[in-house]
């Protein structure tokens, strides 16, 4: 009987034949923690091992700082210090300090993520690394500590849902809109405990940034992981960073043609239009047209979902079509995902144009997504952002947020009200 991608991945990692529902222990290829929950991991590890324990393999552990980079509170400053000291003590050299950017993206850019790898992190959006076929999951500190002691962790083998996508996006419409559509169709609990495979010609032609966007919100449907088979340009990009072996690794996780899926969905993007997640839940999905005209106080482009160069470039095109002008009074903030992305933006001449238009460009970090850094909204304000959650109060008590694509966010900044980007780039 055929196997899905996740079955093949878990099979390799556990050394066992597996079927959905099985509980197995998997060997961990990379166990990471952020400045969020990372300190809890460090404290718990030291407590459990009475301060004498050595981690199972310092080369398979990495730390990333993005919750508050740089820190803006004593507590986080101290938490970051705890991690730095722990890493030093344990001989962990992969510490991506406050000057790097959003963890998952930094790990990817630095070649630490390979197809088929089993990866842990203290970030519920770790699973966006499924964009290159890695089985990455967000876990709590106890799971991380267990992996540091044992190098293993228990998993329930998930059922797999297949999402088949066909068609090409019209101008002004992008992967983010498809994703929003999927979240609206399947709902917040729509993929509970399940793995997803995104397949079909639209996916095969998608670039890495688009794949990341797509996989970044599987969490918002309670899914375990969204997986995409690496191919073409994406595989080349990976090869250049993570080495030749990624080709073989990618081959090994290919789903069998007769693999069994618990559900299959079809989406066609030919007639898709710009979408939003309206307040106060990601699955409260509407078309941009339905909510067009609502006044906004702030827009934010960034986050692990839509903070790559391609995302910022898409926003740039919209601003360009509007003669590089945004509406008076609106606050527009762009946060690149990583330092590499920031450099790309600088080289492309984007930053200067954004600034000239009145848009703020910050250092790479999670920014307002973590609610304690740039862009917290006051009560009564309405924002739009390309992040992945808009739960009530997430970015400021009494405020409300629309989630949308970088193009829609920039179009809305141009007009000061929610705007269909097609009206601007028409």
């Amino acid at each position: 009987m055929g196997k899905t991608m996740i079955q093949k991945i878990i099979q390799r990692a556990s050394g066992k034949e597996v079927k959905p529902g099985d509980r197995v222990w998997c060997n961990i290829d990379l166990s990471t923690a952020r400045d969020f929950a990372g300190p809890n991991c460090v404290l718990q590890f030291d407590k459990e091992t009475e301060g004498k324990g050595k981690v199972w393999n310092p080369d398979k552990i990495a730390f990333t700082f993005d919750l508050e980079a740089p820190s803006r509170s004593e507590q986080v400053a101290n938490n970051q210090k705890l991690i730095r000291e722990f890493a030093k003590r344990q001989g962990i050299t992969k510490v991506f300090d406050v000057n790097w950017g959003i963890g998952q993206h930094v790990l990817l850019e630095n070649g630490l993520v390979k197809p088929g790898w089993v990866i842990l992190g203290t970030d519920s959006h770790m699973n966006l690394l499924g964009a290159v076929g890695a089985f990455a999951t967000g876990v709590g500190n106890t799971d991380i500590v267990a992996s540091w002691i044992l190098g293993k962790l228990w998993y329930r083998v998930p059922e797999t849902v297949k999402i088949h996508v066909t068609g090409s996006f019209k101008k002004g419409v992008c992967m983010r809109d498809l994703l929003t559509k999927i979240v609206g169709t399947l709902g917040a609990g729509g993929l509970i405990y399940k793995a997803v495979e995104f397949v079909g010609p639209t996916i095969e032609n998608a670039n890495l940034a688009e794949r990341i966007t797509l996989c970044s919100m599987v969490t918002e449907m309670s899914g375990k992981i969204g997986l995409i088979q690496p191919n073409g340009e994406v595989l080349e990009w990976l090869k250049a960073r993570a080495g030749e072996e990624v080709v073989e690794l990618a081959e090994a996780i290919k789903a069998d043609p007769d693999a069994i899926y618990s559900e299959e969905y079809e989406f066609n993007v030919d007639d898709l239009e710009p979408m939003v997640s309206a307040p106060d839940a990601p699955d409260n999905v509407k078309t941009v047209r339905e909510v067009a005209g609502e006044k906004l106080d702030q827009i934010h482009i960034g986050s692990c979902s839509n903070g790559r160069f391609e995302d910022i470039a898409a926003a740039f095109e919209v601003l360009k079509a509007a003669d590089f002008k945004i509406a008076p009074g609106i606050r527009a903030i762009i946060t690149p995902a990583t330092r590499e992305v920031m450099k790309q933006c600088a080289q492309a001449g984007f930053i200067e144009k954004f600034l000239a238009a009145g848009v703020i460009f910050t250092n790479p970090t999670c920014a307002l997504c973590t609610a304690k850094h740039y862009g917290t909204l006051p009560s009564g304000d309405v924002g739009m952002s390309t992040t992945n959650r808009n739960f009530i109060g997430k970015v400021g008590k009494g405020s409300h947020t629309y989630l949308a694509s970088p193009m829609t966010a920039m179009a809305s900044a141009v007009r000061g009200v929610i705007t269909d980007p097609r009206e601007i780039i028409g």
Partner: protein
Amino acid sequence: MGKTFAEKVLGKAAGEDVKTGQVVTVEPHFCMSHDNAAPISKIFKKIGVEKVWNPDHIVFILDHAVPAPTDKHAENHKIIREFVKEQGIKHFYDVNSKGGVCHQIMCQEGYALPGLVMVGSDSHTCTYGAYGAFSTGIGRSEMAATWATGKIWFRVPESMKITVKGSFKKGVSAKDLILKIIGDIKADGADYMSVEFHGPAISQMSLAERMTLCNMGIEMGAKNAVCPPDEKVLDAIKDNAKTDKWEAIWADDDAVYAKELEYNLGELEPGVAKPHTVDNYAPVNEVAGTPIHQAFLGSCTNARIEDLREAAKILKGKEVAVRTIVIPASWKVYRQAMEEGLLNIFLDAGCIINNPGCGPCMGNHEGILAPGETCISTANRNFKGRMGNKESFIYLASPMTVAASAVKGAIADPREVL
């Protein structure tokens, strides 16, 4: 008998001939507030006056925590936006790419002008003396009262004359001079006084350097600090002065001073202020090798294009050994630095380039220290706990010294790498 700058400028504002020691009531030309405009507006409302005396004289610049990091900061910003609307205040710098650190904006955008009396609800308001203004920091209640009445009283201060000659040796800058002066006369050495910088070396200095000097006037207790409104100043303001009410005023040659000092730049070397006071001066070689955890190149003291250039010279092609936070003083400076390729140098060296604002300077935003950590900073204060934790340590130094130390991971003399 000749008059000091303070006597002349306050006399002009008061419309009478005044002498040191006399109390005068004047109408300040610009009243600057940053994020603390929110609490001030609350005090203002308690006074029972509906409208400010003149909205065109009030300037708000958000810089302490931008974009807002917490609910509380966000609410404060909102209160300010609403007050701005309600009062018809035009000079408002919100969270966007037009702003920056308040004192930089005041100078860069043509508010700081020769001969004007200016107040700000921030102690480093004395910076505008670089442009020949009489400017000083005041408290929140006094600012609220000034908004209501348009009047503020001053005692005409005694004056201190600091004459500066010679020229800087390589690796030495205005920051080293002001740290040395404060170290010599201590934190209260110029209490209540008007500090006048004189001499050929001041004329040689850029406005950026003069801003560094005047900015730190408050760290020796001065009411204000001022440099002569020479050609450089007139040239800088000719296209963007926000009012034509200014007048180039300077002290008479035979003015009487409470104290006179003289410095020769050629004798200076790179220096630092050691923890935990600004007057705890030491030449850099005395503390060289002290390990650091963070370097901060920013603040209203030293984050102008000239400062970034000096740091970039040292950082070019190198990698920083500790986390290094670069925060240009304004978006204008940021863009200039980008155009000159400086930001690329910083990024390639592994620095973080933050959006303009005060950053970690007063422990509010990016780059707070953890206990036991040490930071070398181009800012103006190193009080215990200033950048966050009370158990952390701050050394103040010039942009060159900060850059050299960032590369080494320990306090370093910039002359070694230049």
